[in-house]
Structures are given as structure tokens and as C-alpha cells.
């Protein structure tokens, strides 16, 4: 390994650290336990559901996700790779489960949009 390799390693670590710190500094991805899961399909919002209520949600006949014990898990997908099923449950704000073939995203959000907007006005 040369000196330049170590510079590259340092640069990658610095970028990773910045990309980790900046969203947290701005309050996005706070890293706390959050209360809701927002489901989007191809960028369009499908619905937002509370994590405190155990329920099963069907998403457009392609996916099924389950909310249990404050966590959300993808339980069914009609795609061949099943990566989203294997990922396991999520509950921390900013975490996502993605079903790429069906363009489905489950993401954990803190509060609903209106509450967040109220916070900005204050």
C-alpha cells in the first residue's frame, strides 16, 4: 500500500462521517425510536401508519407488511429475490425497507407531516 492509498481511505472515512453527521445535525434521521411508517410506491405516498397499532397492510397486491410490537416488517413480496423479506423488522427513524422490483419503500418517520410543519411555524 502506498501513501496515496491511505489518503483515499481517510477521504472515504471523512465523507462517510460527514454524510452521517450532517443529516443528524439537521434533524433528519434523528436515530431515535419513531412512531410511524410511511409507505411510498414509485415515489407516490401510499399511506402512513402508526407503529403502536399492530396491523397487517397490503400494498397494491404486490407486497404485504406487518406492524408488530412497534416494528414494521415486510412479510410478503411477489418478486423472486425476496431481499426485502430477509432484511428483518425496522423501527429507527430513517430506516427503510425497499422492494426494488415493485418500487415499494417502507420508511420510519418521526411524526406526521402536519405536526412537523407546526414545529417549523413556531
Amino acid at each position: 500500500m502506498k501513501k496515496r492509498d491511505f489518503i483515499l481511505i481517510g477521504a472515504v472515512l471523512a465523507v462517510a462521517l460527514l454524510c452521517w453527521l450532517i443529516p443528524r445535525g439537521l434533524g433528519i434521521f434523528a436515530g431515535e425510536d419513531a412512531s410511524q411508517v410511511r409507505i411510498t410506491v414509485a415515489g407516490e405516498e401510499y399511506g402512513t401508519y402508526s407503529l403502536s397499532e399492530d396491523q397487517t397492510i397490503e400494498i397494491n397486491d404486490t407486497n404485504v407488511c406487518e406492524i408488530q410490537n412497534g416494528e414494521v416488517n415486510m412479510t410478503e413480496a411477489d418478486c423472486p429475490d425476496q431481499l426485502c423479506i430477509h432484511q428483518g423488522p425496522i423501527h429507527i427513524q430513517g430506516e427503510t425497507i425497499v422492494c426494488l422490483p415493485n418500487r415499494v419503500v417502507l420508511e420510519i418517520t418521526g411524526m406526521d407531516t402536519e405536526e412537523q410543519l407546526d414545529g417549523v411555524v413556531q
Partner: protein
Amino acid sequence: MKKTAYMGLFAAVAIIFGYVESLLPVFAGIPGIKLGLANLVTVFILYTYSFREAAAISLIRILVIGFMFGNLFSILFSLAGAALSLACMTLAKKYLGLSVTGVSILGGVTHNLGQIVVAVLVVENVNLFYYFPALLIAGLITGFLIGILSGEILKRTPGRKLV
């Protein structure tokens, strides 16, 4: 003729690596992290032959693995990562004065960058970048391991004298 035979051999090795990799479990928690064993072949060919041969072998490997074990999405996804990673490794090898390890690290990191960008475009949800720092570190570690391996293999093989 001899080169064609070697290219076939390398393609076979790359496909086997890709297959072995598909048998290993996906690291739970963070989607999309894997070792990238097949990149060992790409790095090796980039150093013993050139960009053209490395690109050809990568393309063959991605198509064969994709049709055997994946789907159209996994092929597109692999192509995005491989194309960006190979382009960056070729440029880095030429202009940045890095060792094999450094080139391979850059390959690993840019591979993951290419894939997360494609994922964001496909699902049209920019919040996937939540995993970006983890994917950078993962690319760094896997690129480092593959780079060390490639370096050791290059040291012990006749290299360019193969052709």
C-alpha cells in the same frame, strides 16, 4: 487463440465467484452489502490486460448470473454498480497513482454509490441515502479485502506473460 481461451477461463471463474457469493447470506440489517468476490477477477484482468477485457468479462458474468439466479432488476442494478466502479478504477489506475488496494477500494466504494443512486431513481425516494454512510464503509472494507487478495494473486502469477 490463447487469449480467447484465457478469457473463457476468466469468465468461468467470475461466474463461479458470483454463484458462490449468491450462496452467502445477505448481511442482515443493511440491504445490499456483499463481499464482491467477482470483483477480484475484474481487478486482476484490469491489471493483466486492460479496461476492454475487464468490461467484457464483467458484462458476461453479470448477464449469466442475472439470467441464472436473478431477474431484470438485479441485472440493471449490477450493471450500474459495475460500470461506475470499472470506469473509476480504470481512471484511478491511470491517473491517481494508487496501489492495487487503493484502486480496489475506490472500485468498492463507487460500486455501492452507483447502486444506491439507481435504487433512489427506481423507487423515487431520496431517503434511501440513510444507508449511504454504511455503504461507503462497507465498500471501503470489501474493496480493501479484494484489493489485498488481488495484489497477492498478481504477485504470484506471471501476469501479462499469460497472453
